[in-house]
């Protein structure tokens, strides 16, 4: 019978498991520091201590998600008998030299390995959903702010409608097993996923339409790859079967994008209404540039500072939303190691065994905190312009 590990040993063992992460972080920081004057806004993060700490925390979790397969000590789904609610540092029964570094959960699985694998679940969905939400928000927000009038009124009404919904009620309506047999998730996905394709097509077309050869190349590439991915992701009808999404994940993804895009829309619209009064926009109009060119190549680049800051904040917010979904057991399979549902299962035994819930709670908090600090650092640095 082996002894329990002390807290010092546990921390040392975890730090040892994370060696690939430390090495990658050190390499990334060394390279970025050396080249920071040549890297634009990214390099300027390293001028602000707050931004650097935040960036470090975010990249820590990104690397953890990348190397998750190497870091974990046990299979996150395997249950070992006798390890139910085991305390942190308990030796695994019957296996020499194996420990549950952060204890076992209510089904006798390793909490440490589950948290590490959970990072992968979260980082797979949150940034991608935020990117799609941004594409939707930008594609709708630019014309609403630039053209205004009836178009603006109607899109704004729709976005206020979504914003007035209490998020949890919306999730309870949108992310249920019953809704998967109806048309709603597919139609929502069909509407939301077309926006990235439309955005990129207009982006390249408005810039290169004077040079048909180049235009045809870019727009053609976007259309081929975009529509191929679109058919697979939204309708699960990819002829080659490369692009596909589990219906559960699709449901979660679509609802998170749906909740996020009105917020982006509001920010973009507000900024466009401010920027369109500038002289360089008037100059573009006088030159005879088309409205989409002015929106996408004159206004949008000048709105990038606040948008990048909001992007960081919004990934954090999306992480919180995904955690909320997991906390209510919506749209995830019970075995899934994502942080929200781990907290949900852990909370029921909180009075006796707090560690299965506290560990993923701290993990989620540190990731969101890192994103918020990074956003703060970016905001400070971009204001110095």
């Amino acid at each position: 019978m082996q002894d329990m590990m002390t807290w010092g040993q546990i921390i040392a063992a975890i730090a040892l498991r994370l060696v690939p992460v430390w090495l990658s972080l050190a390499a990334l920081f060394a390279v970025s520091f050396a080249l920071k004057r040549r890297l634009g806004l990214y390099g300027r993060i390293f001028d602000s201590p707050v931004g650097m700490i935040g960036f470090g925390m975010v990249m820590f979790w990104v690397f953890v998600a990348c190397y998750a397969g190497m870091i974990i000590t046990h299979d996150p789904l395997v249950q070992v008998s006798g390890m139910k609610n085991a305390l942190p540092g308990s030796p695994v029964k019957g296996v020499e030299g194996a420990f549950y570094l952060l204890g076992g959960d209510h089904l006798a699985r390793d909490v440490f390995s589950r948290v590490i694998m959970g990072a992968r679940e979260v980082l797979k969905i949150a940034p991608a959903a935020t990117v799609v939400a941004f594409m939707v928000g930008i594609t709708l927000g630019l014309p609403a702010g630039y053209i205004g009038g009836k178009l603006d009124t109607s899109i704004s009404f729709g976005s206020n409608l979504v914003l007035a919904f209490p998020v949890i009620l919306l999730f309870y309506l949108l992310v249920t097993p019953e809704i998967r047999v109806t048309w709603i998730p597919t139609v929502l996905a069909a509407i939301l996923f077309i926006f990235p394709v439309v955005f990129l097509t207009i982006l390249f077309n408005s810039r290169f339409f004077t040079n048909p050869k180049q235009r045809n190349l870019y727009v053609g590439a976007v259309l081929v790859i975009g529509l191929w991915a679109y058919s697979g992701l939204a309708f699960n009808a990819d002829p080659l079967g490369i692009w596909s999404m589990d219906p559960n994940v699709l449901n979660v993804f679509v609802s998170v994008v749906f909740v996020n895009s009105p917020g982006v829309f509001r920010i973009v619209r507000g900024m466009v209404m401010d920027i369109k009064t500038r002289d360089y926009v008037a100059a573009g109009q006088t030159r005879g540039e088309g409205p989409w060119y002015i929106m996408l190549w004159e206004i949008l680049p000048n709105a990038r500072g606040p948008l990048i800051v909001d992007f960081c904040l919004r990934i954090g917010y999306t992480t919180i939303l995904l955690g909320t979904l997991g906390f209510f057991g919506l749209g995830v399979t019970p075995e899934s190691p994502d942080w929200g549902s781990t907290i949900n299962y852990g909370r029921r035994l909180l009075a006796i065994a707090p560690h299965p819930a506290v560990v993923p709670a701290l993990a989620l908090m540190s990731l969101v905190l890192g994103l918020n600090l990074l956003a703060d650092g970016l905001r400070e640095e971009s204001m110095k312009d």
Partner: protein
Amino acid sequence: MLFFVLRRLGVMLLTALALTFIVFYMTNLPPNLEKLAKSEASVRMADDAVASWLEENGHGGPVLLRYAQWIGVAPGWVRLEDDGTTRGRCIASGMAPEDAPTYCGVLQGQWGYSTVFKQPVSEVLGRSVGATGWLMLWVMVVMVPTSLLLGVLSGMREGSRTDRVLSTFAIASTATPEYVSGVILIAMLASATAGISPLLADWGWISGKTLFQGTATSAMDDITFWNFALPVATIALYGIGYIARMTRASMTEVMTQQYIRTARLKGVSFKQVVMRHALRNALIAPFTVIMLQFPWLLNGVVISETLFNYKGFGWTLVQAAGNNDIDTLLGCSVVAVFVVLVTQLISDIGYVFLNPRIRLA
């Protein structure tokens, strides 16, 4: 001004109609109705039996008509049974069909019957909204003064050490969603095996096993500091950071204004400048933010009530949604939509009143 308020009211009414229709549509999707039929009548019903049960109980027909009946602007359905009795939406059991009202919907105060709680929805909602009212009240009492104080203190002298410390705290609190802070608070303060409670019990400072109670179920009858502090703190923590940051931003902006500099140069003390000149102008923006926090507070309420097992509005919503209790879920959403829209209206009108620079035709 009057025109502005009327216009806002019109948009609000339209929004309320659209939102309730969406909720009605989503809760009355065919799979949900099928589940309802199977739970109300018999689990092993064939598909055609389900269809006829739904038809007989007023769940057939176009969805707009059913929505209008639920709202109370279309006459409730009436059906003549084979045995000669008449049943209908508005005919309660034991009531003669002739005495029944024609319209019975939300507008007439008929909110339906809860299949989970076996009570009329209005009673369920009345009880749970009352319980949540207390929770919200204490959250507001804790959250608003704390966050305004934090924001004003850190915005008073931008870049000072106080500012850095308080801003870091504010960022950390916005990064801690309710389900995280709740779990950590329980583990630290209300767990018999971890945190500070075992220590305190060892020293004999507390008589029970834990310092605070991990559930707030007893607060339904009697609110005490020990059973209510944790749920209130859980909700308030998330909001404090956000409101404090908004207050700080508005305070720093005000502190750079010309009139503040003039007052300082005339020799008014810093304390007087902050209290007399800056504070009123700096608190306009946070007022809007606090009002717009209500939709978020609803979120927090749902999470906190689930976590602490406090049987209020949020708990009821989760129970109704989890058990396919359509009438209760609809009732909950009416309340939620109402709260959100009214606070939006108050924030719009209040903003115009507080800020003399905005004049509406």
